[in-house]
């Protein structure tokens, strides 16, 4: 069940950008230790709109534009968070992680452990992901696998505004570092194109969505489609197409990659016997392999056919529209993957 499904139609539909900003504002109102840092998050309101309106309410001390010094301000986030503050810090594009990954990988993620739990690191590192609008190979990556592989940080990937708000609230309230990855194509910023399914009803009051609970966003019996973020919407579209052929797909939105709700995925595949993983991140050594391995290692016998992945190929992201669209996952590729599954050698098909 998705919570937003129960909501009255057309009532307070928010974009993910506005839902994120609303959660941050609510937490800042109740907790004076919360503040936001990043590039162009003040007067500009964030390149992707997720801090819009905050500087007007909270001022430039708590909505703090930084120099283009990610190593320093990611490190500073660790230091301030260990000193009693709660941070929301933005890395403008996830692609820029490489200029500050040590501060993230070796300090933010590990200081809780290195201190035996004596130091808390309440940092939400929010960052934009994804392509599809020809921003080239240094501005279009997802890197879900890279971050989920790193121990010590929770990894959140919302697919709609309802989740975006509730997961942001949980992220800010968490005493551990959280990386919060929002997909540009879901933000509700028209200039990036936007997936309409991401803009949904969002309750006004603050609420928290627990980590590690995947959402079954569509029930089905014949095949399980698993993804996060943009892939969830592609999965839903593919499910529509398959439904027209009489195939009922179950679609799972993982919502958090760390912790990973392996049980929900396993239970679904145990029921459907078939698994397709959609990942806009690079195919090899990442999310798609992990989900398949999760099922295979738990009980291979639940699989009625070889699982399939629809993932970004292992290539840098090309600029030209024709090539980028060729490489990206989409609903048609998912439908083909399902057909392909039927063709693969199996021992219990039908």
């Amino acid at each position, binding site marked *: 069940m998705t919570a937003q499904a129960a909501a009255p139609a057309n009532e307070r539909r928010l974009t993910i950008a506005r839902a994120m900003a609303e959660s941050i504002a609510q937490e800042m109102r109740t907790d004076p230790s919360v503040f936001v840092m990043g*590039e*162009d998050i*003040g*007067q*500009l309101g964030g*390149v992707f709109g997720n801090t819009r309106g905050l500087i007007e309410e909270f001022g430039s001390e708590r909505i703090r*534009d*930084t*120099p*283009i*010094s*990610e*190593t320093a301000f990611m490190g500073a986030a660790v230091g301030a968070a260990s000193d009693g503050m709660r941070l929301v810090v933005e890395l403008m594009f996830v*692609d*820029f992680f*490489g*200029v500050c990954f040590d501060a993230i990988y070796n300090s933010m993620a590990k200081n809780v452990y290195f201190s035996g739990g004596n130091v808390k690191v309440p940092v939400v590192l929010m960052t934009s992901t994804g392509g*599809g*609008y*020809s*921003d*080239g*190979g*240094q*501005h279009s990556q997802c890197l879900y696998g890279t971050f989920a592989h790193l121990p010590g940080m929770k990894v959140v990937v919302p697919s709609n505004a309802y989740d975006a708000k509730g997961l942001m609230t949980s992220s800010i309230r968490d005493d551990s570092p959280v990386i919060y990855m929002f997909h540009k194509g879901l933000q509700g910023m*028209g*200039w*990036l*194109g936007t997936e309409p399914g991401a803009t949904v009803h969002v309750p006004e009051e603050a609420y928290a969505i627990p980590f590690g609970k995947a959402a079954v966003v569509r029930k089905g019996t014949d095949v399980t489609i698993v993804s996060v973020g943009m892939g969830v919407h592609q999965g839903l579209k593919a499910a529509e197409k398959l439904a027209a052929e009489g195939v009922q797909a179950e679609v799972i939105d993982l919502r958090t990659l760390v912790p990973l709700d392996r049980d929900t995925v396993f239970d679904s595949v145990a029921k459907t016997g078939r698994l397709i993983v959609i990942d806009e991140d690079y195919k090899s050594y990442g999310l798609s392999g992990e989900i398949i391995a999760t099922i295979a290692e738990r009980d291979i016998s639940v699989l009625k056919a070889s699982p399939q992945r629809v993932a970004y*190929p*292992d*290539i*840098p992201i*090309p*600029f*030209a*529209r*024709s*090539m*980028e*669209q*060729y*490489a990206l996952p989409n609903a048609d590729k998912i439908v083909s993957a399902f057909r392909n599954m039927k063709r693969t050698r199996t021992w219990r098909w039908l």
Partner: protein
Amino acid sequence: MTPTRDQKFWMYEKMVISRYLEESIEKIYLEGKKPIFNMANGPIPGEMHLSNGQEPCAVGVCAHLKPSDVVTSTHRPHHVAVAKGVDLKKMVAEIFGKRTGLSGGRGGHMHIFDPSVNFACSGIIGQGMGPAVGAALSRKMQGKDGVAVAYIGEGAVNQGAFHEALNLAAVWKLPFITIIEDNAWGISVAKAQSTAVPDNSVRAQAYGMPGYQVRNNDTYEIFRVAGEAIERARNGGGPSLIEIETSRLAGHFMGDAEGYRPKGELQALRARDPIPAMRARLMAEEGLSEADDAMLVASYRAIVDEAVAFARNSEDPAGEEALQHVFA
């Protein structure tokens, strides 16, 4: 060092070509993006960082460079690419994402690579620095003539790569020059809000290298200072830093509403547009007439128009070409 007549006309040509290229791109970029501005649409999709106003930084420096010298530029690379002699047709085709582009459409406007004139860039702040230092090292080790120039924005100077690269170039006494294009803004953040010193030129002292500050986007002064620094580098005198006060006459990228700009700033900057200033100098110093100027400008524009036509008429790459050239 003052430019010769030829050098003056060369600089003017490149400035006009660069500006007209940006104006052409601006128009084409908006095709298909109205009434709804969606970056993904139109003949030129994606982000677009125009260099209008920063032409002096390009021509004043590149006037001293040969094709064999190395230049790395930033996410805002067109003016420098034009001045460095990057193949214009192939570059415009790349910006359009065509098969005939410099990289067959794989790079796009932030990833202009033309090894025939040793030009490269990166969309990541500060990350042109290391590669330029490496090219300078390569030239020195090979005993080959040549200097390497890295462009960087004033906002990017606060990135660690700047510090590391300058120290490395100085320790190894490499033929390396960094050009800081100080347009006073890093997207919406003003220089004073991000930089602890008024002038980045003082930072040269941290590396024991000469640091120059050029005011007022002055093409001749850039030419003079860059000439001195490049000559020193060629003669084994090591690296230099040059900060240039320049102006960003457009938004950070296309679509930027620039709500953060103080009222009147843009108008004031436009009044000091370096291209009319250069034209006026050519008229005063070299007897350029209105008529000759019109002819010249028309011929420069024709070069751009031809490149644009070439790009427009080129084919899109097939989707599966995406899989090529991942490895050398």
